[in-house]
């Protein structure tokens, strides 16, 4: 590694090294940064694409939940109404159920992501993000937790999932309680 005090001389020094040692290939700090930027820019794009797929899958799951309950769930709501539960009781229970499931999922996901990043150095994504033998010198990514990102994840997962469980329950909970007797 060669250090040059005057940044304006970097290109000249590199040219001189090339001339003196024709088998070497001087790489400037700016070249490394440009390479990193180019590499991470498109890889970041791919990761966004993968994330979009995951988000789409989540939206489909929430949509599936929002557009209907299973016959068994509808039957259960009918029974609860028949044995004296009000519509509001059913909705309260369903919102607790939705909130519990999504909160558990969220915290489990955050916990696993923390383990993955901080204890295994993101073993699943690291080779893909850094590349295999493209980059030099070797470097370690510095993981960090950003509360803002966690809050955004929370708002975009827990809240819609909880809402998605309430809407179909509300539709089912407004049935007459005697529907169970007539089945």
């Amino acid at each position, binding site marked *: 590694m060669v250090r040059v005090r005057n940044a304006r001389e970097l290109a000249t020094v590199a040219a001189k090294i090339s001339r003196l040692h024709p088998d070497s290939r001087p790489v400037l700090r700016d070249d490394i940064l440009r390479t990193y930027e180019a590499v991470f820019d498109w890889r970041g794009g791919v990761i966004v694409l993968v994330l979009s797929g995951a988000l789409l899958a989540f939206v489909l799951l929430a949509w599936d939940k929002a557009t209907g309950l299973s016959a*068994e769930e509808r039957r*259960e709501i009918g*029974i*609860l109404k*028949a*044995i*004296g*539960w*009000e519509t509001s*009781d059913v909705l309260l229970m369903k919102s607790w159920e939705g909130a519990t499931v999504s909160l558990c999922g969220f915290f489990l996901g955050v916990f696993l992501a923390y383990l993955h990043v901080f204890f295994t150095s993101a073993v699943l994504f690291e080779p893909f993000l850094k590349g295999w033998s493209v980059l030099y010198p070797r470097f370690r990514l510095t993981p960090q937790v950003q509360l803002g990102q966690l809050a955004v994840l929370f708002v975009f997962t827990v809240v819609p999932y909880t809402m998605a469980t309430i809407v179909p329950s509300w539709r089912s909970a407004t049935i*007459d*309680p*005697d529907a*169970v*007797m*007539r*089945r």
Partner: protein
Amino acid sequence: MIRLVEISKVYNAGRTNAFVAVDTVTLTIAARTVTALQGPSGSGKTTLLSLAGCMARPTSGRIFLEDKELTSLPERFLTDIRRRTFGFVFQQFNLIKGITVLENVMLPAYPTGERHGVVRARALELLDRLGLADKGPARVEWLSRGEAQRTAIARALINTPAVLIADEPTAHLDTALSREFMEIMDQLKDQGTSILIASHDPLVRDAAVIDRIVEMRDGRLVSGGGPG
């Protein structure tokens, strides 16, 4: 105790497929008695049970519990009365799968806001009384038909209702279990519970515990109507 005055129930009223399930029925059900509604399928027994138990509102006519008129009450108050006054045993038992016998029995008590420990103790006592003391932690899917039936009875009794309403309770039971069910009804009657059973099972009709038989056909009372 329960007074039905000229009640009718029409499903799909005003449409081409309108169906009169109960037609101008007047019936009084006295306290601490066992009344059996008899009649063929489609005669209106189940609908009459739903109306008497505040599960459905009549299209016309009035329903009184003691001297309080229920017909005009808002849904919320009606649900509260249904929860505290009536216990229901359904033909298909209608237990909720995936949870235990004890949890099923406690379900009707949750909206009352009563303390969990008190409700749990009462549920355990009921299970004990009905011979299901060791079945509390079991899932309902594992129960035999007789055990499921008794669990449904325990659930119906958890809020200590004054009236027990049973719709074709012996339809899925063999003779021995049907007799066992009627014996339980006898015990409940002795403890002061009024019972209203809809059934076309001769075993129910002939049971000694029955005080009165009301015959129905085509939504109307054929015999046994009037004061209880």
